[in-house]
């Protein structure tokens, strides 16, 4: 049996009177591609925030490669290989796209690996080309569209050699024509590198196409966790997702 890379056990989190996570339990095997779906406010981003250790759980535990993350903060989690992109792209606005990626390359596991940023240019350019962003290498984020910034955010997380990569709505703001291409590149490269991938996504067509497992969330609880083909059999899922 393949070992679980990430396992969350009984995770609960409240913000004031609102239950963001309610006894969430699930796991992901190495190289698995899972999607989280659910209406706004269902706890998807909170789950990613807790796994990446940006937000601390009120109860429960996150186990990464057999180790509890109770005492691990988000910086250490990133050093351990838990990387993520953001709903609102988090970039370095004073640096070019190429330098943004080069810096991520330099910081694999959090320790600067090169002294000159120039020595990483070729690899950074290659990574941008992979995501069809090569022509934007010299542009700074403020000169790019929202969709382009989202993809740059993903490239930055990708080149950090994640063991678990979490993408928060990677195709929001990306044109319909481009989102399939982007998701295709993301999945193909994750598979090639053996990266475990957890994606928050609203577009159910993409979910049905690429997900090996789907986590459907509603009001902080997991109402479905399993392969996409069985989703529609659940009346609760149909009700939550309106399908």
């Amino acid at each position, binding site marked *: 049996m393949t070992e679980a890379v990430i396992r969350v056990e009984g995770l609960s989190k409240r913000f004031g009177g609102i239950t963001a996570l309610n006894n969430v339990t699930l796991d992901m095997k190495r190289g698995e591609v899972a999607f989280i779906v659910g209406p706004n406010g269902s706890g998807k981003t909170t789950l990613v925030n807790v796994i990446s250790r940006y937000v601390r759980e009120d109860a429960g535990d996150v186990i990464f490669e057999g180790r509890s993350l109770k005492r691990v903060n988000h910086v250490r989690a990133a050093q351990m290989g838990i990387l993520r992109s953001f709903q609102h792209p988090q970039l370095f606005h004073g640096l070019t796209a190429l330098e943004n990626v080069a810096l991520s390359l330099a910081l694999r596991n*959090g320790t600067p690996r090169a002294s000159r940023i120039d020595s990483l240019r070729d690899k950074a350019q290659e990574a941008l080309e992979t995501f069809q962003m090569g022509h934007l290498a010299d542009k700074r984020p403020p000169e790019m569209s929202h969709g382009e910034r989202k993809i740059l955010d993903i490239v930055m997380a990708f080149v950090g050699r994640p063991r678990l990569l979490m993408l928060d709505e990677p195709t929001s703001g990306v044109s319909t024509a481009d989102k399939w291409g982007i998701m295709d590149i993301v999945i193909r490269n994750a598979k090639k590198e053996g990266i475990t991938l957890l994606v928050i996504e609203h577009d159910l067509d993409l979910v049905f196409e690429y997900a090996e497992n789907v986590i459907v969330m509603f009001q902080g609880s997991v109402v479905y966790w399993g392969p996409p083909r069985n989703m529609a059999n659940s009346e609760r899922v149909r009700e939550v997702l309106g399908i």
Partner: protein
Amino acid sequence: MRPALVLAAVMLAVAVSVPFVSQTAMLIALFGFIFSITAIGYNIAYGYGGMISLGHAAFFGAGAYTVGLMNRHLGMGELAVLLPLSMAAAVLVALPIAPIAARLSGLQLATALLAYSMLYYSLVLKLGPITGGSDGISISGLAVLGYEFPDRQALGLFIYFASLALTVLALLLVKRFLGTVGGRLVLAARDNPLRLEFLGYVPARAKMAAFLISAAMCGLSGALYASALQFVNADLLYWTMSGEILFMVIFGGVGTLLGPILGAFVLSGLRFYIATTPDVGIYWQLALGVIIAATIYSAPRGLIHSIYRAATLIRGSKGGGHD
């Protein structure tokens, strides 16, 4: 040959010939170069690291007082020892506050550093028997590699060329530093510290390094300043000194390579005018305030950007990055 290189060569030639042409121009340029090192250093913390400070007078003063105190109490006048020692002293003064500076931002940071620097100002006034109190310390017997300067003019000439060389060196080192991963980390820590954390890096590390480098450069320039005047007093540690350093960088262009040098020269020119024109001394702070307000209004990105824009317009070509 690129126009920028030609311009740099011409400016260097002018700078080298200034002491042999005009004593007045040399005095203005002397303090222009000394404050250029201060401003380049300050710009590393503020322009590149995003750490606004109203406390850099403490580091400038630490450098100046290292020369004064070592000279007064140990009779030391060897600049080859005093200048590196001044940098070390400034770093030592910056060290306790650096972890805090690296974690605060904006007004909180500016006021925390203001309070910190005023501690040193008070300390210097309180420890009169050691520091000379409000009378300050006169410095004498300065030498370089054993050669004692026979008069003020010879010393001034040496400090002039040393400051010129150190300004060029500082400029080249900062340019090189920005091309390193460390330099880019400083910019990234300014732009988006949270993102750096999610790449597994603690941004405070880069900010601390920038802050300490900045302090060291201010210490060096403080030592040159004290050596040039052969005098040091507590005014160098007062918060208005920090304000003047900030002014140089804002006036010239925050986060640019050449802007701080431009700002330093403008301030030196103004200082010289005030010092040599009767009855205008009382208007110094007022003049500075008006100039700052006018600069922020008319050239919010600093004078260097206005010059670049004008040059681009004159060339009739589309602009590109200069710094």
